């Protein structure tokens, strides 16, 4: 089974969020980048488990610049066989997806996995766009994935519950919590990752469709009003008359 896992970097979840250049750019000062948690914990680890059972290979792909290679090496240390970096600024989800779709079409994969969303832009766009670009079925927010011959059985979230579906390979799947457990890379993995291939590929000619013009931080909350634990009638009264939510 040949699996392609889309990996993006995201700021460490505890990063301070700030902007520079007249609020037009994310302030990277002091920010640590990690592999986007959904891509690492769920998509990549499940891909490795499938390979361990059925054989094949796991490739990771990132659309980004040379500075992204650190997080790509981490994915290799966890166990991916090879890495592909499409050498371009990931301008928008459409741009990123069309690059990946071109590469995946040319190289033939059975499954393309993405994370549920990136935790910086939270778009949940890339997986569906790759699927349409390749004219393949797409199952979003899968929390379980089993392979049986050419058929994949998936559990996916639906509003207020879950659904079990089946599709034939090839397919694109976005991965959510439940699919696998986090794997911490060990020393051997980290050493081996240094020798694994990381191929840099020039981008295809794609024009992005959207652009972030500016950013803003939410206004600070006004001070929290404290209520005595004995006095829950007062809280209910405030929620009704002041906050008007009940």
């Amino acid at each position, binding site marked *: 089974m040949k699996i392609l896992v889309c990996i993006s970097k995201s700021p460490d979840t505890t990063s301070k969020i700030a902007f520079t250049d007249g609020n037009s750019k994310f302030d990277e000062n002091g920010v640590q980048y990690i592999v986007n948690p959904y891509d690492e914990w769920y998509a990549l680890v499940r891909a490795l488990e499938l390979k361990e059972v059925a054989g094949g290979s796991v490739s990771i792909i990132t659309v980004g610049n040379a500075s992204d290679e650190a997080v790509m090496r981490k994915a290799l240390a966890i166990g991916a066989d090879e890495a592909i970096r499409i050498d371009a600024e990931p301008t928008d989800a459409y741009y990123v997806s069309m690059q990946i779709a071109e590469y995946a079409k040319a190289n033939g994969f059975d499954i393309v996995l993405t994370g549920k969303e990136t935790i910086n832009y939270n778009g949940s766009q890339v997986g569906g766009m790759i699927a349409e670009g390749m004219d393949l079925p797409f199952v979003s927010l899968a929390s379980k994935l089993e392979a049986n011959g050419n058929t994949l059985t998936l559990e996916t979230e639906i509003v207020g519950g879950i659904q079990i579906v089946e599709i034939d390979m090839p397919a694109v799947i976005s991965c959510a919590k439940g699919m696998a457990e986090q794997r911490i890379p060990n020393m051997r993995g980290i050493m081996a990752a240094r020798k694994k291939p990381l191929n840099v590929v020039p981008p295809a000619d794609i024009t992005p469709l959207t652009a972030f013009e500016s950013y803003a931080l939410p206004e600070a909350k006004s001070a*929290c009003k404290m209520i005595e634990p004995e006095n829950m009638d007062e809280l209910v009264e405030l929620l009704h008359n002041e906050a008007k939510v009940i």
Partner: protein
Amino acid sequence: MATLVYINSENGLAKSAHEVVTYAKKLGEEVVVVTTGSQEESTLSELGKYGASKVLVEKSVSGNDAQQLTRVITSAVESTSANTIVFSHDLVAKAVAPRLSVKLKAGLISGAIEVPNGHTVKVNVFSGKAFGNVTIASDKKIISLLPNSIQPEENGSACTVESFDGNPGEITIKLIETKKPEGEIPLPEAELVVSAGRGLKGPENWLMVEDLAKELGAATACSRPVADIGWRPHHEHVGQTGVAIRPNLYIAAGISGAIQHLAGVNGSKVIVVINTDPEAPFFKAADYGVLGDAFEVLPRLTEAVKKFKASNQ
């Protein structure tokens, strides 16, 4: 020209359906809704109240196969020459809107939280820790609206319901089984949410949480460690790596308020925090705080809500 709104009417019309039609109406063009399945005409024509003038129904499609829905919506875009397509940013839209974007070469903005200001649309980024203003370069535009971002407005107009052939094509995703816990309020749609964390000590203590939720008509949620150890089901986990919600009221008991938890709930209009630790970071994000033991405060709050409801009838 028109604005086309996709609505999933499989289980009747949710509040989010009223929100998206209200939103579309504010864009200034005629509003046409496209939906699939066998929903009653009288239910669908209700959308007129919020500004829809027409509902197109592709009756031959049931279920949520994203490729089929993409084809159906594309046919509706062609027949209405719509330039803007609006979704509610729910689980179906997360599969369909990106596909449609590629098919129509129409830029997609997901998670809009306000009516556009000129050409820019405001969205949540960094898991709700900041906002971004996005523009679309293409002529055709797709916007998916975050649930609970705007209030539905009734501005009444007549609305016709027509069936149409949307050219759905084949199904590629075979549905085997659907599991839905009965009688629970789905978390992403809930206006009131009662949530609890590790401070509750064990799963046997969740009755207090459920009692309060039942009294309020609220959904229940939890912090991540609680779902990870299996005290609560996974779908209740809110935060950066769980569900992001923005209810009118979020009550958090025994949750410390870690940054990753806040990322999923900081869009809530009003936050109430119940915690024994005055230093708990959650108090900084709260509107109302109760410094006390959840084991005493929750039952007392439930009683107070009961009393309030009895006196307001």
